C-alpha cells in the first residue's frame, strides 16, 4: 500500500503547521495588500511601502536561512559562502532587469550604462538572451546550481569536512566577490546593477508590483518550508542526519555520503539563488558586497539564533536579527555591532538550540511532555518535539 506522494507531502507536516502556514499566507496575500492599498496613510493599520519592502526583503532572507538550515542543521555542513549563491541568483535576474531598462538609461542606448562607461560596443556573450524572462529564470537556477554542484562534488569527494569546508566556502565567496568587483568581468563592478525600471514591462516601483514581489517571496518561503519538512522527514533526511552524526558508519552500511551531501548542498544553493532573484527587484540593487564573507556568516547567525535543525528556526532568526538591525541602525547606530556581537556569543553559549530550542525546553518543563533527550546539541533538535508526531515511517514501524 504505497501512499501517493501528495498525501505523504501532506502528512509530512502536522495539522497545526498547515494551519499556521494558512494564517501566514492569508496575512501575506490578503491582509497586507489590503492594508497597503486600501487603508489611508493616516490610519494606524496602514502598512507603508517601506514596511512592505522591508518585510519582502526579510522574507527572502528567511528563505536563505531555511536553505542554510537544511545543509547545516540537517547535514552538519556549515557553509560560510552561501552569500555567493544568493548573489549569483540576484545577478542572473539583475541581468534581465538591466535589459528591461532599455533606452531609459542615462545614455539612452540599449546597452547597460556601465558597458557604455567601458566603451563596450555590444553585449558580451554571457549576456546573450538575458532579455528573455524565462532564460533569466533558467540562469537563476542553473548558474548557482552548477557552481554548487561542481564545487560540492570536488569538496565532498575529497572528504573535506567541518571547518575545512567552511573555510574554503569562505574562500570561494571571497574570490567571487573580487572577481565581480572587476569592471572587466562585465557585471558593473563595484556599482553592480541599479536603477531598475520594470519587470515584464510593468513599472517596478508601482505598489502592485511591490505587493506581487512580496507575495511571491511569501509563497517561496511557504514552499521551501513544506519541501524542507518533507525532505528532512523522508528517508533521505534520515540518511543525511546519519551522515552528520557518523559518516563512516553510513559508508559501511552502503550509502554514498558524497551523493547525499551533494544533493542537499546543490538544492540549498538553488533555494538561495531563488531568494536572491526575488530580493534584487525589491531592494533595487545587487552588487558584489553581497558576497562578502561577513554577509555569509550573518546567514549562519540567523539560523543559530532561530535554532538549528528546526526549519522554522531559520525564519525566526532571520526576522529577529534583521528587525533588530533595522531598529538599532536608526535608534542606536553606535550599538548595532555590540548588539549583533553579543547576540552571536549569547546564542552560541546559552541557547545552543536557539529560540526554538529554548521554547521547547520551556515546554518540556511541563510534566505532560517527555523531555527532549540526548547529549549533542543536535539531539534535541533532531528529536521530534513533544507535540510533533514522529516521522511517518517510524510511527508505522512502531505499530508493526
Amino acid at each position: 500500500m504505497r501512499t501517493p506522494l501528495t498525501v505523504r507531502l501532506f502528512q509530512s507536516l502536522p495539522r497545526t503547521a498547515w494551519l499556521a502556514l494558512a494564517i501566514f499566507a492569508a496575512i501575506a496575500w490578503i491582509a497586507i495588500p489590503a492594508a497597503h492599498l486600501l487603508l489611508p496613510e493616516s490610519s494606524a493599520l496602514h502598512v507603508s511601502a517601506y514596511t512592505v519592502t522591508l518585510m519582502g526583503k526579510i522574507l527572502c532572507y528567511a528563505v536563505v536561512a531555511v536553505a542554510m538550515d537544511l545543509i547545516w542543521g540537517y547535514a552538519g555542513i556549515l557553509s560560510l559562502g552561501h552569500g555567493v549563491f544568493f548573489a549569483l541568483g540576484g545577478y542572473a535576474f539583475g541581468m534581465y532587469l538591466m535589459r528591461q531598462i532599455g533606452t531609459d538609461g542615462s545614455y539612452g542606448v540599449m546597452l547597460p550604462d556601465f558597458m557604455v562607461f567601458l566603451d563596450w560596443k555590444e553585449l558580451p556573450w554571457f549576456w546573450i538572451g538575458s532579455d528573455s524572462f524565462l532564460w533569466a529564470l533558467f540562469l537563476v537556477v542553473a548558474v548557482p546550481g552548477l557552481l554548487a554542484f561542481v564545487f560540492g562534488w570536488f569538496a565532498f569527494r575529497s572528504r573535506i569536512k567541518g571547518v575545512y569546508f567552511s573555510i574554503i566556502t569562505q574562500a570561494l565567496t571571497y574570490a567571487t566577490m573580487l572577481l565581480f568587483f572587476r569592471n572587466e568581468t562585465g557585471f558593473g563592478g563595484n556599482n553592480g546593477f541599479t536603477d531598475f525600471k520594470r519587470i515584464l514591462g510593468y513599472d517596478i516601483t508601482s505598489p502592485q508590483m511591490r505587493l506581487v514581489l512580496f507575495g511571491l517571496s511569501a509563497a517561496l518561503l511557504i514552499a521551501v518550508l513544506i519541501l524542507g519538512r518533507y525532505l528532512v522527514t523522508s528517508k533521505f533526511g534520515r540518511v543525511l542526519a546519519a551522515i552528520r552524526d557518523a559518516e563512516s558508519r553510513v559508508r559501511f552500511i552502503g550509502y554514498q555520503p558524497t551523493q547525499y551531501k551533494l544533493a542537499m548542498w546543490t538544492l540549498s544553493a538553488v533555494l538561495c539563488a531563488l531568494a536572491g532573484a526575488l530580493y534584487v527587484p525589491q531592494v533595487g540593487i545587487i552588487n558584489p558586497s553581497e558576497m562578502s564573507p561577513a554577509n555569509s556568516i550573518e546567514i549562519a547567525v540567523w539560523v543559530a539564533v532561530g535554532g538549528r535543525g528546526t526549519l522554522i528556526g531559520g525564519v525566526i532568526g532571520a526576522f529577529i536579527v534583521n528587525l533588530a538591525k533595522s531598529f538599532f541602525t536608526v535608534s542606536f547606530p553606535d550599538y548595532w555591532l555590540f548588539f549583533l556581537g553579543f547576540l552571536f556569543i549569547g546564542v552560541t553559549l546559552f541557547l545552543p538550540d536557539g529560540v526554538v530550542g529554548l521554547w521547547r525546553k520551556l515546554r518540556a518543563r511541563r510534566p505532560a511532555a517527555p523531555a527532549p533527550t540526548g547529549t549533542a546539541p543536535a539531539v534535541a533538535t533532531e528529536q521530534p518535539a513533544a507535540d510533533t508526531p514522529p516521522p511517518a515511517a517510524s510511527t508505522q514501524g512502531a505499530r508493526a
Partner: protein
Amino acid sequence: MSPSLHHLLRILWLTLCCAFGSAHAAPSAETLARLAADDSDTRIAAIAELGAEGSAQSVALLDALADEALALTGDGRLVILTDTGALDAASGSAIAPYPDDAEPLMVNNRVRNALQSAKAATNIRATDRATRLAAAQLLRDSAGEALMPILEPALDAEPDKEIRAILALAVARVNLASAEPAKRIRAAELLGDSSDASVKAMLAALLDKDGNGQFAEPDAEVRAAAKASILAIERRLAIADLASTAFTGLSLGSILLLAALGLAITYGVMGVINMAHGELLMVGAYATYVVQGLFRTHLPGYIDSYVLAAVPVAFLTAAAVGMLMERTVIRWLYGRPLETLLATWGLSLVLIQTARVIFGPQNVEVANPSWMSGGVSSFADIVLPWNRLVIIGFAIFVLLLVWLMMQKTRLGMFVRAVTQNRAMAGCVGVPTARIDTLAFGIGAGIAGLGGCALSQVANVGPAMGQGYIVDSFMVVVLGGVGQLAGAVTAAMGLGLMTKILEGWAGAVVAKILVLVFIIIFIQKRPQGLFALKGRFVED
C-alpha cells in the same frame, strides 16, 4: 633630465664663472628680494646664485627655504624662523620682537629641485664624505653640460674611490654628447658600469635611426661600445628584476606569516576556530599606537625606540585580551568548532566596535621610527625598505620564539600533551584548564606581535583585522593544521606566488588566482602541505 633643470644649471654655471675667485660675501639684498618673488623662475635663479656662491650664510638661507622656515614679514623683510626666535635673513642677526605676521615662503617641487641641485653643487666641494657622496649621487642623475666646470675639477680632486666612480658616470653622461668621438667611445664604455635604466635609454637613443636612415650616432665604434654597454646594463637590470620580485615575495610572505602565526597556535594546535584573530592583530597594532603616543608625550628623546617598547606591550595586551576571551567564551565551546566559529565572530564584532568607540572610526597614525624609514639601495638601484627588512627579521624572531616555546619549555610540553590527549594529560596532573588559557593567551600574544609589525606597513584602524582573517586561515589550512613548518612554507609560497602573478596579471587577478589555487589545492590535499598520516587522521 628636465629642461627646467638645464636652464637652472646654465644659470648656475654662468654665476659660477663670476662667483669663482670673488671673495665669499654675504648674499646681496637684491638676491634676497628675488628669493621672495612670486614667479618661480626668478626665485630659482636667485637660489642658483646663492648655491654657486656657497657662503655659510647662503647655505643657511637655502636650508631655511628648504624646510619652509624662510618667511616674509608684513613690512617685506625676509626672516628665518627658528624654534627660539627669528633671525634677519640678510645679516643672520636675531631680531626682536618676533614678527607674528611672518608668512613662510611657499616651496613647490620645482623650487625644491632647484634647492637640491644648488646644495649639491656646493656640497660636492664639502669636506665631509657622506655629504659629497649624496651630492655626487644627485648630480649623477641630473648633471648636464652646464655643470662640467664643477664636475671635472671635483672629479680630479675627489679622493674617495666610490664617489669618483659616481662622478665619472656623471661626466660620462655629459661626454656622451661631446664633439670628439674618442670621448664619446670612452663615455659609452664607461656607462656600461651603470645599472640605471635611464642611462640605458640614453645609450639606446644613439642607436636610433632618423627619418632618412641615418643613425643618431654617426661613429660606428661608439655605436658598438653603446651596444655592449646596453647589454651589460640589461643583464644587470634583469637580475635586479628577479631579485626584487623575490624580495617583495618574501616580505609579503613574512607579513602573512606574522599574521597567521598566532592562528597556527590557537587553531593549528588547540583547534579553536578563532574568527576574532584579526582583531587580536588589531589590539597589538593599537597597543603599538598607544606606546608611540606615550613616548611622544613623555620620552620624546627616545621616540625612535618606541617600537622596541611596543613589542612586549603588544604581546601582553593581546595575550590578556585573548585569555579573557578564552575564559569567558571559548572555554565553553571546546570540541564544538562551528559554534566556536560563530561565537568568536561575535567577539570580533564587539572588539571592532570597542576600538571604534575608544579610538574613533578613523585610522590612526603609526610612524616608522627613523631607523625603519627609508631603505638600503642595493645594486641596480633596487631599494630594500628598512621596515620590510626589519619585519622579515622580526618574523624569523617570532618564529624562533614560538618554536622554542612549544618545543623547549615545560608549558609547551604541557600544551602538546593536552592537545594530544586531554584526559590522559589531566590524569598525569597537567592542569588542563589553565594550560588551555595559557596556550590561547600565547597564541593571542603572538597575534599581538603580528599586529605590532603590521602597524609598520599597513593601516591601523578598527576594521584592520578583517583584511587579514581570510589570508591567515588560508595560510594555516594550506600549511596543514598544527604544522609550524607548514605555516612557514605556505606563507612564503603564497607571498612569492602572489608577487609573481601580480607582476604578470595585476593585483586583482593575482588575488583571485591565489584563492582559486588554494581551493583546488585543498581538494587535492585536504590535510594541507604537511599532512599528519596515521590511523587517527579520520577523527
